[in-house]
């Protein structure tokens, strides 16, 4: 199991547009990725309802996990996305 701990960079937290972008990116990966917060049970990163249900605010730490071939690459991409201020791309 490979893990990445990331601080949420988006000012509005991981919901609305940033959550959509994250879930879309997770759905494109060849491996299935989970995301967890505060030691709670990890949830499927491809599930928008589960991701916004985490209530991850700006500055919160989340843990991304994946297994198997391509896990490293997938986690790197998603971790970078979580850490960035996704909202700033909204224009």
């Amino acid at each position, binding site marked *: 199991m490979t893990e990445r701990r990331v601080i949420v960079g988006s*000012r*509005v*937290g991981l*919901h*609305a*547009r940033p959550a*959509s972008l994250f*879930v*879309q990116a997770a759905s494109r990966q060849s491996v299935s990725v989970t995301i967890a917060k505060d030691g709670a049970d990890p*949830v*499927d990163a*491809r*599930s*928008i*309802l*589960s991701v*916004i*249900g985490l*209530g991850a*605010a*700006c*500055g919160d730490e989340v843990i991304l996990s994946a297994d198997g071939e391509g896990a490293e690459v997938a986690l790197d991409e998603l971790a970078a996305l979580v850490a960035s201020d996704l909202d700033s791309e909204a224009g």
Partner: protein
Amino acid sequence: MTPILSGIAVSPGVAAGPVAVMAPASSVPEASESIGTKDEEAAAAKAALEAVAGDLAARGATASGAAADVLLAQAMMARDPVLATKVVERIEAGVAGPRAVSDALAEFRKQLEALGGYMAERAADLDDLRDRVVARLLGLPMPGLPVRDFPYVLVASDLAPADAATLDPSRVLAIVTEEGSPTSHTAILAKALGVPAVVACRGAGALTDGITVLVDGRAGQVTVAPADVLIEAAMKAEDLRRAAAARASGPGHTADGHPVKLLVNLGTARETHAAAAADSEGVGLFRTEFLFLDRAEAPSQAEQRDVYRRVFDAFAGREVVVRTLDAGADKPLRFATQSAEPNPALGVRGLRTARRLPELLATQLAALADAASGSRADVWVMAPMVSTAGEAETFAAQAHEHGLGMAGVMVEVPAAVLRASSLAAVCDFFSLGTNDLAQYAMAADRTLGELADLLDPWQPAVLELVRMAAEAGAAANKPVGVCGESASDPLMALVLTGLGVTSLSMAPVSLPGVRAALAQYSLETCVQMAGRALSAADAAQARSAVQALARD
């Protein structure tokens, strides 16, 4: 005889056209007949989710701005793989499809509600999604705005904020709702879009698709199956009224020259351009909540200053009355609102938020002072939900310390009216929020359509409170404005002027009508009208007494 339905007029204008009824959400049956095997039931549920997702995505692709975001997010939710799994699990356990969808979504809804604030508001998106999927499964008409390829009169029980966000003013000729109050989403939206509207219209539920109606958003009347000559006459009268309104321009005044400042309400920075283009003397109510909603932390002083500066620049040379953050009640904030208040309307909201988070107000005042110092706008600030002279004095002192010269209070709590003289002595102006003032004076929830008659701004008790506040202001030589919905009703504007109100703030679309009405009557007549309204037995009599005087 042609039947006429009566309701409350909330957005001026006249329109005629075919009715399109917005289907109500279908209730989820506790148990419904399974359509076949569990596999078939699961396949049907998945197909319904996908069909709804496709529909939402298609609508999202043609919408713009906030509406597009909401629709595309909902489409993603309908395609959520975990949702599909949870639905199938329930069907496998013997639950019927519609109930399985409803229960699975309820599970996610609970999570969002527990998070509170903005996330709890998103719970309504899940309810809408549930209603759509269930309607699809049960073969019922899709809830939400009707889809027609011709312009129509929208008839609904009431509109949800999400419906309001996607409403296309080029398609919707007029809005008629059976529920709703003068301060409901429907009313505020219709006015902002310039679509004629009648709310709390009894009998609207009996209107059916395709029948022609004539909607008079000034009189609050809906004529069913009107004769063509009637439609022509109504349209002609409306054109004449509009032409007369367009001829008047410039600062507001009565026929004999008594000045009444005409101002606009501003709710988001996005509206600034259109609001600034309107023929007004400035902004009478600049709501600042939009800067704070939908975010985890309060905006910084620099961010606030930049937003305020842009608004002040757009109104250079004019007055801008800024209301400090009015959080709480119907506008919860993640970082400032206590989630579990039993009575949010009576809770820690408006200026009361500063008891808990004094730095929030201090930062906002500093940002406002900073933005004001470099601008040519005449910046006034006011605090919402002030109940005592002590609160008014503290706020005014704080604003003055920041270098903001004009510091006033919103008068929306009856206690503030009863002590208006003491309040007028310690601050620089009053602004009457008539929506909340009516809600608190009549002890009637603003959001309850059932009590809309009690919230009618023509209630003599509410007018009495306006008179008391205006007299106290006049005695202390302090301006008294009205920024509630009632300022936008031309007839009411005459009464408010007669009661001693010195400025009226409204949606830009309402300015011409109010300006024209004022120019037609002398201050003396306005005072007479105010007297008639005050001595009427109820709201309906107050309105008709004033109407009678206006016709003389």
